[in-house]
């Protein structure tokens, strides 16, 4: 143990003398949390919607008034009246408007005659966010019109779905927070662990260790423990700052923070052990740099950090199953946003612990105690 502690102490002295490493490791994920969280979490405003009224009837006028009400209220779009469909479509193609609503001739008559009237929405489906938002708002408007008719005809009402939200409104920035914490842990594992390990190897510092009586297991344990301590520091700082920034209620609740610290520690140990297993026999300093870029994408996105795992295609879900990020993100989300206790995340903690232990044993077996 003395040897392990001596090597860990050396790493920590260096770590504390490199504040830039700490700042940049935390700043990157934090920036991502704020930018991505607020960029994806917002609602659309100020779109321009072309309206072509070929009907000029009472119901068409009601629809146009409702559209104007959206502009005045939620502000999702501003309705711009076009004289003919051709002009409106041209405006759509050149990007002056985001969609075209055509109220066809006979629209009012069809409503009154209950002949399933239709309104056409021509959308720019290159931008799926915009087109789905427009379609959603318009469906509400038209459904409103339709319901007036339904009410008067006394048709049986459809099955109603009552939605009860279990938690207060969770903005996207909070949904993104657990993934960002895991990303900060991963970034420190790479910068403070893998890169530092490889730089020491290239500079010959490991050569100095190898001629001493330190054993192979002690060397691997020291690399793992020091890398994990750095990564836990990054993860903890990001948890605290991220919870405050994203507005998670009661961010400093001590029991929850201690539970989060446990998840962060197991995540750090799992990631750092896997990393050293991958690098145990690598001598090229470019490898961890390239691996960092690839793994960042490969581990972060399928993990449910930005989008639910259940929405992913099969092959990405397969990656999510073997991705330690998945279990860490789920455990942190359950703890931080759902307020559940350790019992709820025990399976995730077991997976993270097993990953760390197996990778440590394997890397100790693979690591060569020679040049």
């Amino acid at each position, binding site marked *: 143990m003395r040897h392990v502690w*001596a090597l860990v102490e050396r790493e920590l002295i260096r770590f504390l003398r*490199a504040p830039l490493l700490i700042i940049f490791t935390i700043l990157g994920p934090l920036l991502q949390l704020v930018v991505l969280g607020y960029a994806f979490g917002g609602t659309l405003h100020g779109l321009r919607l072309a309206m072509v009224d070929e009907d000029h009837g009472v119901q068409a006028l009601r629809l146009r008034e409702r559209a104007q009400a959206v502009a005045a209220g939620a502000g999702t779009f501003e309705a711009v009246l076009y004289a003919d469909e051709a002009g409106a479509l041209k405006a759509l193609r050149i990007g002056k408007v985001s969609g075209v609503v055509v109220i066809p001739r006979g629209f009012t008559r069809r409503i009154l005659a209950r002949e399933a009237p239709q309104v056409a929405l021509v959308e720019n489906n290159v931008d799926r966010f915009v087109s789905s938002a427009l379609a959603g708002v318009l469906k509400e408007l038209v459904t409103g019109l339709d319901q007036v008719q339904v009410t008067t005809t006394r048709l049986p009402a459809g099955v109603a779905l009552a939605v009860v939200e279990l938690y207060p409104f969770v903005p996207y920035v909070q949904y993104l927070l657990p993934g960002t914490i895991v990303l900060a842990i991963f970034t420190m594992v790479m910068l403070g662990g893998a890169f530092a390990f490889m730089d020491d190897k290239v*500079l*010959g510092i490991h050569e*100095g260790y190898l*001629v*001493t*009586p*330190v054993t192979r297991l002690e060397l691997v344990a020291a690399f793992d423990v020091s890398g994990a301590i750095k990564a836990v520091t990054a993860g903890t700082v990001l948890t605290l700052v991220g919870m405050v920034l994203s507005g998670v209620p009661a961010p400093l609740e001590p029991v929850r923070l201690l539970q989060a610290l446990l998840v962060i520690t197991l995540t750090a140990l799992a990631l750092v052990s896997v990393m050293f297993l991958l690098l145990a026999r690598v001598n090229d300093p470019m490898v961890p740099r390239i691996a960092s870029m690839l793994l960042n994408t490969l581990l972060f996105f399928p993990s449910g950090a930005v989008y639910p795992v259940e929405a992913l295609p099969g092959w990405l879900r397969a990656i999510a199953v073997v991705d330690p990020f998945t279990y860490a993100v789920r455990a942190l989300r359950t703890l931080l946003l759902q307020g559940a206790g350790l019992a709820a995340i025990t399976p995730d903690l077991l997976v993270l612990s097993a990953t760390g232990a197996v990778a440590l044993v394997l890397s100790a077996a693979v690591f060569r105690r020679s040049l």
Partner: protein
Amino acid sequence: MSSAAAIEVEGIVRRFGDFTAVDGIRFSVAEGEIFGLLGPNGAGKSTLIRVLTTLVPPTAGTARVAGCDVVREAAGVRRAIGVIPQNMTSDRELTVRENLSLFAQLYDVPRRRRPALIAELLSAVQLTEWADKPVKFLSGGMRRRVEIARGLVHRPRILFLDEPTTGLDPVSRTAVWQMLRQLKAEQDLTVVLTTHYLDEADALCDRIAIVDHGKLVALDTPLALKASLPGDSLVEVSFADPPPGWVERLRALPAVERVTGEGRAFRISSLDGPVTLRALLGAAEAEGVHFESLGVQHTSLDDVFAEYTGRQLRDALQEPSARESAVMTAKGRH
């Protein structure tokens, strides 16, 4: 010098793929000896040191260091040796004291003994004033002294130094030499060092092994190696217009043992430099032969190296190393 062997090397071979870096080298080093491995870059010196310090396993052969086999009893070897590698590998961000403390812990020096030991070592390498400065602020010579102190932190019986003065200015080199002599005298160390500096080998080593292309080509004391060459002086001379048969005239000069060279430049080995030189000047004047250049020197290790390897060490240092050549050849084949 004690007669017990500190190091015994028996037919060590080390291959890297097709390339043989060390090719069947055998020698022994007595306790208390300063033993030099001399040769150009790529000769196999560093690989041999790495085998002896357990960093690289041998492909064939055996070696015992401090009585322990370098493969089967590597832990015993590591406890007995101090290693100062070719590259300066102290942590630049840590202070001198922190570097020494780290290695004292890795060598299991008891906590209570560490402060006094480190203070003593700092004094020995004259770095007491710099003890709490990060290594990155030290000059090359000072950093080399940190490495030497680091290698001695557990009072090893045998110290390995791989090119300890490469890259240092002449003043720092001399300081390192003095330090090594002093340490050896005070601590009864056995020292093995590699170098491609002839003056370093000559000044420091009790015995020198000349290594070239992975093989041991000569091994003896510096004096004996120089004495193994004909003559004790070497006259290097070139003429503007040597007449036919001039080389025979040179061979007939008094005290001449051997004449090499052709055309206008010759190397004359002489048992008595001044006598040969006077006769040479007389003969040239009598024949009307003009000198282009003339120099006389005592036989040096460079001459020894040239004798055993067929080329000057300074020329060998300009060549790509054997390993580089092997790599270039391999690349050329593709």
